[in-house]
């Protein structure tokens, strides 16, 4: 490097400070030279104004000044994080979690208060109830995998600011799912013709509910995808109001009234989802019609979350299917292979109180886990990994403890709710609540659900880190446990024993998810890297 005269030194110092102001810590002479060029300096300026051979040499001088500490730099901090009141934050996510169980809650409340829900009614005969239950369960199982796939792929594109593509993929998969749901009705019809699970009139009622509810769940996935779940409260209220109006004012039969409500719910949910997706598309940059992902790519990239969604829904309904297809100990002498049992269902429905109360806590934990990752990663130096890992272990323990306390509170609340319901002026309800089957199913299911939510907290954290593989492994084992235990007890002791399958499955899921998550937390730096 040329030794510079004092005047040039001052000039170098001045321009050097400008460069450092622009780049922060300079990497090397190349970065500084590029900056000098865009500041309008040329080799001729380097010679005439800075006394250097060329800009590269001027850059060397600036770098030397920086290394000698003669050019100041101010490390740029992170953007200030907006402080949100922790109570408000908790409430926000708690309510978001509550939205997941909203249809069930509203269904239960309106049934009790006005006798009608979006599907079913309190005065419904068991025959029609069986058909509706079958349609409901089938719709949930068939669409769950698709719904997960819609959301997963949609969010993938959304996070990449590809709103148009998010819309395209969500609607494409929605349409594939709708067609798949419709097509599956064919084999179901054939199966019913051969095995007569239900008489044909009931089968067609089941089919109608299956199709309308399948659309509803799929539309809900669109609404969830675009982050408009709060609209569900309005949509459900309007739709249930329509059912009640059709039944009470127009005097329509329950099935027809439900269909009107479901039609309205399907239309509105699709509308809300579509509006949200259209908004995304307007803000997006990519044009999905150009070289869109092939069908096989969609299948390939969503296979694991699809499987998770499918297994999740199978897990949720295995015990009911086993109970309602079992004969041992049944007091209602089922005329067909699939026959709704009101006592069992009531126990399960009441146990859902635990899910409703805990879902928000799980949602809050999952959000906090996700929100902490990037700031903690920025704070943690790679060479000092342990504090980062410890921070998340502590987080995990704290949230586990909170959930356990909340679970106890939820169980007590559920028990209190049952006691309160005992005073509800409905003789059939009181009779069912007095039944040992209902009480047994309630307690076992309530405990199972509490354990299930404990497991779900872990599964969702795994999903946050894109470890659908670990989640699938855990839930597949849980489903198998659920089926085996539930089948053995319901066929050998009592039909309602299938609820012990739910308990065993929940325990299996909790153990496996806990084990997997502990492993992940032990190498969280790696798992976070791989989660993209």
């Amino acid at each position, binding site marked *: 490097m040329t030794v510079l005269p004092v005047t040039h030194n001052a000039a170098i110092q001045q321009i050097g400070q400008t460069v450092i102001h622009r780049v922060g810590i300079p990497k090397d002479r190349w970065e500084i030279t590029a900056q000098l060029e*865009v500041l*309008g300096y040329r080799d001729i300026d380097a010679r005439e104004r800075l006394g250097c051979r060329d800009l590269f040499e001027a850059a060397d001088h600036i770098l030397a000044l920086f290394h000698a500490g003669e050019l100041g730099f101010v490390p740029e901090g992170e953007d200030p994080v907006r402080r949100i009141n922790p109570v408000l934050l908790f409430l926000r996510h708690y309510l978001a979690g509550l939205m997941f169980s909203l249809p069930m809650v509203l269904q239960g409340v309106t049934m009790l208060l006005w006798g009608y829900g979006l599907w079913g009614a309190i005065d419904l005969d068991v025959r029609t109830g069986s058909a509706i239950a079958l349609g409901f369960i089938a719709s949930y199982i068939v669409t769950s995998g698709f719904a997960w796939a819609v959301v997963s792929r949609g969010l993938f594109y959304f996070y990449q600011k590809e709103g148009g593509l998010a819309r395209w993929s969500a609607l494409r998969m929605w349409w594939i799912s709708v067609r798949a749901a419709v097509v599956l009705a064919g084999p179901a019809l054939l199966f019913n013709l051969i095995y007569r699970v239900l008489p044909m009139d009931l089968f067609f009622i089941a089919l109608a509910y299956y199709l309308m509810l399948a659309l509803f769940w799929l539309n809900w996935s669109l609404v969830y995808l675009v982050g408009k779940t709060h609209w569900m409260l309005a949509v459900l209220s309007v739709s249930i109001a329509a059912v009640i109006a059709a039944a009470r004012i127009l005097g329509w039969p329950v099935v027809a009234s439900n269909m009107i409500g479901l039609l309205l719910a399907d239309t509105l949910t699709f509308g809300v989802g579509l509006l949200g997706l259209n908004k995304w598309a307007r803000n997006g940059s990519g044009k999905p019609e150009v070289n869109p992902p092939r069908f096989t790519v969609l299948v390939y990239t969503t296979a694991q979350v699809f499987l998770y969604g499918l297994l999740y829904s199978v897990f949720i309904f295995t015990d009911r299917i086993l109970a309602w297809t079992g004969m041992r100990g049944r007091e209602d002498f089922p005329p067909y292979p699939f026959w709704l049992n009101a006592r069992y269902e009531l126990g399960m429905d009441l146990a859902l109180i635990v899910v409703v109360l805990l879902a928000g806590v799980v949602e809050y934990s999952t959000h906090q886990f996700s929100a902490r990752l990037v700031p903690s990663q920025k704070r943690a*130096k790679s060479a000092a990994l342990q504090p980062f890992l410890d921070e998340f272990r502590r987080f995990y323990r704290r949230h586990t403890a909170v959930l356990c306390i909340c679970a106890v509170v939820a169980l007590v609340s559920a028990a209190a709710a049952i006691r309160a319901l005992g005073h509800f002026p409905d003789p059939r309800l009181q009779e069912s609540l007095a039944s040992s089957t209902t009480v047994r199913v309630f307690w076992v299911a309530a405990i199972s659900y509490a354990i299930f939510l404990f497991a779900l907290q872990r599964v969702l954290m795994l999903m946050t880190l894109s470890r659908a593989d670990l989640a699938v492994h855990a839930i597949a084992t849980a489903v198998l446990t659920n089926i085996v235990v539930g089948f053995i007890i319901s066929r050998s002791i009592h039909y309602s024993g299938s609820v012990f399958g739910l308990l065993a499955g929940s325990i299996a899921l909790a153990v496996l998810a806990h084990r997997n998550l502990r492993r992940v937390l032990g190498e969280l*730096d790696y798992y976070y*890297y791989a989660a993209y």
Partner: protein
Amino acid sequence: MSEPSRLSVLLTTEGTYPHSSGGVSTWCDALIRNTPEVYYTLVPLMMNPHIELKYDPPHNARRVINVPLWGIEEPAEFLTDITFAGLHIRKRDTTDSIIEREFVPLFRDLLDVINHAGEDAAAFGRVLVAMENYFQGHDYNKTMKSRAVWFAFRESMEEHSHHITSANRFPGAAYQLPSLFDLTESLRWLYRFLMIVNVRVPRTTLTHSTAAAFCGIPCITAKIRNGTPMILTEHGVYVREQNLFLSRFHRLFFAKQFLLNLITAITRANYHYADIISPVCHFNTRWEVAQGAARDKIRVIYNGVDADRFIPAPREPNGQRVIATARIDPLKDIETFLRMAALVRQTNPRARFAIYGAIADRKYFDKCLSLRHELGLDDVVEMGVESQNIISTYHSADVIVLTSVSEAFPYSVLEAMSCAKAIVATDVGGVREALESNGVLVPPTDAEGLAREVRRLLDDPALRATLGARARAAIVEKFRVDHTIAKYLDLYSDLAERAA
């Protein structure tokens, strides 16, 4: 009768042809269209797979292998030469022990090359070939997201940072040590940039990379594998542009350092393996030579324009009009254009101004809008619109202005020259080589100098006409597109003969 054997060229682009407009794309389109006797295989690296084509490649572009770097989860999404079952088998066969045994040593070599900014360019080439070989039989996503790769990366980066900080106690050394976020981001970027090693390209007579960038990788590996001659045409200087871009990473010093090392390494490998480096102006050679390109490989081939299309036309007398054709981007220094306009307006109140070009940087555009308002030029300077007919746009102007602080060999100057327009331009990049004394040069960012020269030209129609005529003559003599194409064809033939 069999077709006589033709020259086949693997032409690789990055963020340009055929999906974006701009100088490189104009050049590519002209090259392919004007060499119908050559068959091309195009390998465009693109931001995401859903970008609309800006150019419809002609028939001699026999095949287009798109390589999106973002907008996909893994390369399997764009690979068309492997079946769904094949992908599954490949994934299944990519076991942890294979990754550990076969890939991690390669990966460590790669990191070593990157940490030394590609000083050993030949070693980088060998690693790239080995990686291509590995990914022919193994899954990219599973490998790159494996535990073994993460730990190798973490270990290597920690070791390298520690080595640097213990050797130099310069200010900010603490930022040299990576945070977990730095490492995560860096390895995720590496995942994206290296996706091109999954592409299988056909064997061609020669390869032609349009930037000393990642798009050069298939050309480098073809050179190593088959001895296929490689041409590298640099329009801008990739390593310089990336230095400018990554300077914005104030908070992520480690990530900036890692990416610049990677980019420098890839640039040097391109220079090392190219048989001919053909920058579009002499100005670019400063950086190329400084980065290790051998001088005897460099042959400058200037861009050319279609002088039969960009022709002079009489200007309608409707006030004084000054225009620029430039995208709204800080490198085009639109602020200086606005300041120049404000100064010119003081003496030439009838003068009107316009900047035609896409908005490349929305934030910068908003800043320029504020400045325009502040200078009272809202009704005087039009900006943020793209010209529908660039030739008539040139025809509508008295003076064409270029205010860029960074350029290579801009088409906007050549086109304006071809239309016999008087030009005032900043003396940056290769602009001087194009304009010589046939226009006016002023130092960059010098709004007063620009205003003075624009004013002089606006007030002196005879001078405008003289400069315009000389500019047109220079184009016809030196910068015609057919001359440019002929030079590339000569290069192609020479290299093909040498290879044969």
